[in-house]
């Protein structure tokens, strides 16, 4: 599998460290309640198909990257700096 780092370009999967579901960027408000926090921390989908997760370009530029990929075909559909994605979330866009 090859992942396109938004800064470095397309690179071998070995250069990246898998961090987890991109939902990690959507941290609930501290007062959001047990249910929201339980969901945020523990509930994950396990799709056969398109998923979105965080990868760390460990052996490259050290950026966190949101990777949209297909778990069945291993196709990488989209990559975006986590920083950008987070900014969009904060500003209320999707």
């Amino acid at each position, binding site marked *: 599998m090859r992942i396109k780092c938004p800064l*470095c370009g397309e690179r071998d999967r070995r*250069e990246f460290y898998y961090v987890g579901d991109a939902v990690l960027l959507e941290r609930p408000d501290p007062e959001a309640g047990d249910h929201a926090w339980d969901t945020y921390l523990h509930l994950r989908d396990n799709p056969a198909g398109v998923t979105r997760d965080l990868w760390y370009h460990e*052996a*490259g530029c*050290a*950026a966190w990257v949101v990777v949209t990929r297909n778990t069945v075909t291993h196709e990488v559909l989209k990559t975006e700096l986590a920083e950008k994605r987070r900014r969009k979330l904060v500003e209320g866009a999707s």
Partner: protein
Amino acid sequence: MVELVAKSPCGGRLPVEHGASRLSEVAMTRLTSLQPKQGQEKALSQALKSAHGMVFPAPNRATGKEGARAIWIGKGQAMLVGPEPDAGLAAHAAMTDQSDAWAMVRLEGAAAENVLARLVPVDLRQTVFKRGHSVRTMLQHMSVSITRISDEAFFILAFRSMAGTLVHDLETAMKGVAARR
């Protein structure tokens, strides 16, 4: 007083030459990491230009020349190689002295590209990786920064603690390429 002797990271191991490639250590010099403060990218680039003659490098690029280079080494970060950093840069960037933390080597010769092709998972051929181009990537299992400084020469930065492995891996590949001529 004890007289301290500076020991270079690859001391005693280099230079070596095999076939059409040669590996040598770059003399220890001042290394400073520069991280622009938020919104200060342009101001830092201008300050760098007037103080040291090069702009802040874009991702995957290096600026400057022999003796004073700025090499992009990661997201929002460049390494100033050579000069004592101008104090004025501190207004626009977080700076850290990294002088003793890195091993610096120069790989050159007609076979240099083929040597790196055995070790690095990025295409470094002249057609796509030209002078002034730079990458953060892996050399075997090691994190490195590789910059093309001329048609047949690369400047490689690796963590100082890995200097022995760096030389070993490069020399093994150099011998392998030389044996196939």
